[in-house]
């Protein structure tokens, strides 16, 4: 219990639990040019902290999480850099050592709860198998624990649900079941990859509330991957905004929302629909798409879509201004250069 209490007040804790340094993931398919999905991403997650990775589709946020988990397909991918978890670089661990940690110390929640659950295995079995694997329990011993887990994530009548199959549960229940599986072995780090994207809005709010509650209760650190800044505002202590495989801005939740520096962050904030906006007011999306990106090697990838573009943006790579807590990557940030 002392460890949980220690991690319950994590703000002062200094040693990062997970420290990602200069992570690079390159996809190389036969005959195609290499594609840098993740291009030098660094960030820290301290015990008990909730860190957001935010960006639109294709910015590399999911690939970052899969690389940390060692879940990228072996073929055609090169992963470089470091992901130090508890003193060990996860990227250099043997597959079997990584297997021992996955599900036990680092767990993951996926985006689409229906396709992420095995359709022909009962919910109960899918929860117990994690405990059988990592805690050496028999199926019989693990079953009551699975029931408790389902109850804890707010699934009504958990005993009956144990023998149900995924298709017999609603979308929200399925996501809760996935969360139960992730929590089964009390992981120290939880990675949630767009856990609410496939759900309708009321259920989204419930799931987020549940995650928030669980993070506080268990002291688990959480990496929240999302495209939705609304999710970030409600949940994250620290936010990393990704664009084109690089972190373009980082900051505490309050700072980032109050005084965003990178034009892309501003664009993301502006594209959130507001209930109190006058009826008929147009949304303000970020123009263009990731297909317009310039190569980072000789420019700012975001330049073609940027409202603040200056000459340097198309001829030089913007360097990181800041540290591992706050910073941005922009020649002409909002609010002027400090």
């Amino acid at each position: 219990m002392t460890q949980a209490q220690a991690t319950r007040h994590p703000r002062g804790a200094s040693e990062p639990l997970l420290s990602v340094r200069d992570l690079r993931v390159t996809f190389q398919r036969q005959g195609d040019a290499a594609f840098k999905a993740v291009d030098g991403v660094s960030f820290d997650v301290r015990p008990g902290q909730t860190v957001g990775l935010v960006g639109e589709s294709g910015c590399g946020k999911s690939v970052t999480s899969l690389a940390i988990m060692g879940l990228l397909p072996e073929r055609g991918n090169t992963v470089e850099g470091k992901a130090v978890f508890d003193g060990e670089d996860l990227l250099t661990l043997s597959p079997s050592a990584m297997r021992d940690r996955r599900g036990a110390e680092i767990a993951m929640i996926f985006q689409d709860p229906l396709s992420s659950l095995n359709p022909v295995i009962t919910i109960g079995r899918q929860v117990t198998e994690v405990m059988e694997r990592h805690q050496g329990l028999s199926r019989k011993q693990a079953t009551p624990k699975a029931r408790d887990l389902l109850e804890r994530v707010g699934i009504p009548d958990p005993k009956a649900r144990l023998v149900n199959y995924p298709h017999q549960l609603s979308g929200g229940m399925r996501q809760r079941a996935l969360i139960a599986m992730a929590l089964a072995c009390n992981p120290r780090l939880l990675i949630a990859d767009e856990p609410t994207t496939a759900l309708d809005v009321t259920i989204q709010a419930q799931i987020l509330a549940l995650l928030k509650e669980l993070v506080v209760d268990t002291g688990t650190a959480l990496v929240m991957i999302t495209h939705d800044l609304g999710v970030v505002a409600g949940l994250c202590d620290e936010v990393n905004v990704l664009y084109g495989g690089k972190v373009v801005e980082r900051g505490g939740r309050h700072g980032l929302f109050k005084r965003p520096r990178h034009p892309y962050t501003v664009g993301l904030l502006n594209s959130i629909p507001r209930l109190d906006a006058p009826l008929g007011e147009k949304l303000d999306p970020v123009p263009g798409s990731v297909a317009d990106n310039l190569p980072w090697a000789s420019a700012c990838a975001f330049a073609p879509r940027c409202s603040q573009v200056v000459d340097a943006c198309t001829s030089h790579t913007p360097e990181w201004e800041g540290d591992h807590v706050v910073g941005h990557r922009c020649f002409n940030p909002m609010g002027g250069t400090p």
Partner: protein
Amino acid sequence: MIRFVVRRLLQMCVVVLVLSMLVFAWLRSLPGGPVSAILGERQTPERRAALEAALGLDQPLPVQYLKFLERALQGNFGVSTKVLPGEDALQVFLDRLPATIELSFVAMVLAIALGIPLGYLAARRRGSVIDNGAVIFSLVGIAVPVFFTAFLLKYFFAVEWNLLPVSGRQSTGLDATRITGMFVLDGILTREWDAAWDAIKHLILPAVALATIPFAVIFRITRAAVLDVLDEDYVRTAEAKGLTTRVIRARHVLRNAMLPVVTTIGLQIGGLLAGAVLTETVFSFRGVGDALATAFRDKDYPVLQVLILAAAVIYVLVNLLVDIAYAVIDPRIRTR
């Protein structure tokens, strides 16, 4: 589940009834006809008319059909004219059935026991030598006609290298006791090991020939299904749980991949009779397929009717079994 099975059995009765009409009409529309078959082509019109009247062939087709149906429901399908002259047609089928069951069973076991593991292995090692080799081998299996495979096997293994018997189901002069009509099983049941071993040796080549196409199809479907399942999100979830490779393969991949494979196996069992006609003919293996070929050649209408209807019934029954197997594997179908 029981309601499901009963409903499917009732549906099956309708299917068989409709099939019996089609088979009846089709056989009547074949050139020649029973009279020529029995009397030969050179007969006086008077004698032909007399036989037609005696057989009831002068009556309208629907009346003939109803009479046929009435007798058939009592198990009377008429008397064989050529395959085993004088013998009850249904009895001809029942006598030949054990041989074909034995042959088909061994062929299917071979096809499944090789097809599924190889298909799985090929999918896991996609693009490897094993994968490419097995894919080419299966392509050959599908492309080469069964009778040609059968002849090749017979030529090399039986004639050239003299390793296995050329034809038949058991060596003549072997005094074996018959119980089920499946010679290998009989040998085992009666502990006549020499008879069983002899029957096995006779079974190998026909079974391998008959197994080639089902093997190739099962292999390809398994390979494709496993490749599909490996890409599924739930396999990634299983990986994220840190489960061992063995558990992921057996519990998460194989079971889901088996769904299309089970359907394929069912269809292949249904299609075995077509292969059995060719294989049994090449190896003079006295089963249903051999009887069907003989009955066609010699226009033995009663036997043809029995055999075709029986094939249809078996096909429908196998389909029912496939549906049941499906429901066992996939809970989404069970609760529907």
